[in-house]
């Protein structure tokens, strides 16, 4: 990051190669759309480049990147007109599927649509904890909230998701 701060584009390229998966995963899990996710992840890296002269290494770069991507995603959601769904789309039935692969695809689609139906900050809390494995302290930095606030968000997100994902748990038993 110090090289990037000095305007070294080669250092920036190394940074992108090393951390692109994290930025992409957060953006994809948040939006559920590959094109939108790529756009947001790209914006996040450009923001890192623009802000590099003012960057001070107070935490791991990974945490800083999560913070930038999270802000981009939440800002993007605020600007975008929300799609209101009175009833969540049907995604899983008891009908048998042709094979395990089809099951997995259906399960992933269902989870993604259940995530999409959550309020933006609940969804981001789930993404950062369950898909990225961040601790409460790291989530608090990324989301610009207190540790207690992110723990509350997570608890509410779990409550909101649980009924929707109950069927998968039943299949697992």
């Amino acid at each position, binding site marked *: 990051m110090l090289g990037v701060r*000095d*305007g070294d*584009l080669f250092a*920036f*390229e190394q940074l*992108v*190669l090393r951390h*692109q*998966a994290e930025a*992409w*995963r957060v953006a*994809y*899990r948040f939006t559920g759309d*590959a094109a939108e996710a*790529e756009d947001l*992840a*790209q914006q996040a*890296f*450009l923001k890192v*480049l*623009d802000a590099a*002269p003012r960057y001070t290494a107070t935490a791991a770069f990974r945490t800083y990147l999560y913070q930038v991507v999270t802000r981009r995603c939440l800002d993007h959601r605020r600007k975008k007109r929300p799609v209101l769904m009175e009833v969540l789309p049907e995604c899983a039935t008891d009908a048998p599927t042709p094979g395990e692969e089809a099951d*997995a695809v259906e*399960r*992933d689609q269902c*989870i993604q649509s259940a995530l999409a139906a959550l309020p933006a900050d609940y969804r981001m809390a*789930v993404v950062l*904890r*369950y*898909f990225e*494995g*961040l*601790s*409460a302290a*790291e*989530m608090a930095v990324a989301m610009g909230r207190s540790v207690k606030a992110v723990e509350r968000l997570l608890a509410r997100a*779990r409550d909101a*998701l*649980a009924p929707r*994902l109950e069927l*998968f*748990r039943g299949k*697992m*038993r």
Partner: protein
Amino acid sequence: MDCPTAQTNLSAYLRGDLPLDQRSALVAHLRGCRICLVRLAAVDPLASVLVQTETPPVPSGFERRVLAAARSRRSQVVAVAWSPLRWWRMASAPMHAAAAAVLVVGLAAGLALGWAARPATRQAQEDSQAMALTTALAAYNLDYLGDAPGGSLADSYLALLTNRKGGRQ
């Protein structure tokens, strides 16, 4: 990763406290081990569902597109708002040397010009005034005023004519 290790790591995994490499190993294990997955479901049902999902890989060529955007953005920024400090940071060593050389030559030229145009010394000033007085007396046929006493009206007139400050004492 074996089952006992995986089950020992479940709590840290759920708190988000596992290092990245151990986390990846545990996730890979959970996707293939039903026993450990059921253990996880007992503690956090949501985690047991979400851990089984796959995120698509980063789109191919993503880093190339980011870099292209960065280069284009950087050239736009330089064109719009040129900053000497930013230029200095981005310039190569030969450019630094060239800039330093231009600075030294500029300073040397400024010093030389300043030295050439420095104010005349007191002696040179007096000499030039005496020369101007002689020239004025000869040019305007004012020889008769040459012996005028210092401070007289005639002397003041001569002082005005030769640009001399004050009259002779």
